[in-house]
């Protein structure tokens, strides 16, 4: 009887020690959890850890982050519809020849990119493409700087999934541009805008240029999230 009492007292002590140690560890660990949260928000691991510290506040923050990320990805998916439209993609081909038409066939004359993206020999873009569109059905569209991306920075859209294209567009090594410069290209480059003035016989992208640029801006401002 006495033995049993001593034993259970001993077990009780053990439990108290364990609880104290746990409390101490949690108190020491808490600041680390906080600092980690600032560096990389909203991964699954952090979300689980932060619950222990302050379930209410942290859950809210994570939720806001998650919404922002979702909106960024959704904005990209909208912009993607324009990026993959023939008026945009035809000059961002996977090969070295530009594409033509809504079926994105290889450009007639088998035109080639060349080093600077402006064609080669007797097959320079500007030999046919003038500063402005030529009037008439399916006549060559124009722009003062008609070209493909250069050979050292091909900026391929053709065949890219939304995730692949988003990852590519935010990688300066693959674009030669910061995201801000990329946004400027999308918002202001007259060759980009030429997609919305395609000349007779060509369809326009599914969004207006203003809508497209706004989606692209939203994607970047909400974190340039790569959609799943």
């Amino acid at each position: 009887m006495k033995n049993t009492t001593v034993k259970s007292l001993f077990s009780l002590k053990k439990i108290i020690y364990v609880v104290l140690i746990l409390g101490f560890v949690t108190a020491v660990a808490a600041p680390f959890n906080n600092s980690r949260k600032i560096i990389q928000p909203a991964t699954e691991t952090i979300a689980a850890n932060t619950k222990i510290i302050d379930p209410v506040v942290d859950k809210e923050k994570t939720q806001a982050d998650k919404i922002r990320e979702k909106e960024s990805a959704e904005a990209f998916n909208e912009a993607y519809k324009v990026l993959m439209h023939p008026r945009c993609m035809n000059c961002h081909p996977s090969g070295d020849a530009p594409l033509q038409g809504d079926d994105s066939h290889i450009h007639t004359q088998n035109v080639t990119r060349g080093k600077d993206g402006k064609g080669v020999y007797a097959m320079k873009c500007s030999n046919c493409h003038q500063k402005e569109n030529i009037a008439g059905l399916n006549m060559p569209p124009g722009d003062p700087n008609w070209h493909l991306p250069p050979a050292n920075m091909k900026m391929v859209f053709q065949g890219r999934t939304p995730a692949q294209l988003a990852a590519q567009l935010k990688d300066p090594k693959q674009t030669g541009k910061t995201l801000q410069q990329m946004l400027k290209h999308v918002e202001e480059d007259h060759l980009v805008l030429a997609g919305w003035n395609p000349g007779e016989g060509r369809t326009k992208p599914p969004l207006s240029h203003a809508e497209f640029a706004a989606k692209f801006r939203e994607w970047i401002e909400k974190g340039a999230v790569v959609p799943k």
Partner: protein
Amino acid sequence: MINLKVNGKDYNVDADPSTPILWVLRDEIGLTGTKFGCGMAQCGACTVHLNGDAIRSCITPVARAEGQEIKTIEALSEDAIGKRLQKAWIEEDVPQCGYCQSGQLMAAAVLLKAKPNPTDNDIDLGMSGNICRCGTYQRVRKAIHRAAAMK
């Protein structure tokens, strides 16, 4: 009035700025060696040089050539490359009906200037925009190689 320099000569032509260079050359100046093929930059028959580039004159507005230098097939043989091409074309007996040939030659001259010893691939890249309905492509290729070897 639009001021043009064609084959080294100055011309003042009274034409609408949007008139294709081709019609100014043929109808105003009287240089009919440059041909009208498709009228939409698809075939290459109308190729002339504008400041050394092989532009398609059937769609290029004459305003673009204001104060610039145009060279047509009539003056091609005035330089060394043109002379060699002319000789090679005769030796290979390239033309059949001949309609596309002035365009072929103007394109070939631009190719040889940029690439004095072109490979078959260079010839494909530079010449695939000049269409020949008689199918003289093999002789065009041979003649370009021959002209390149003449130096």
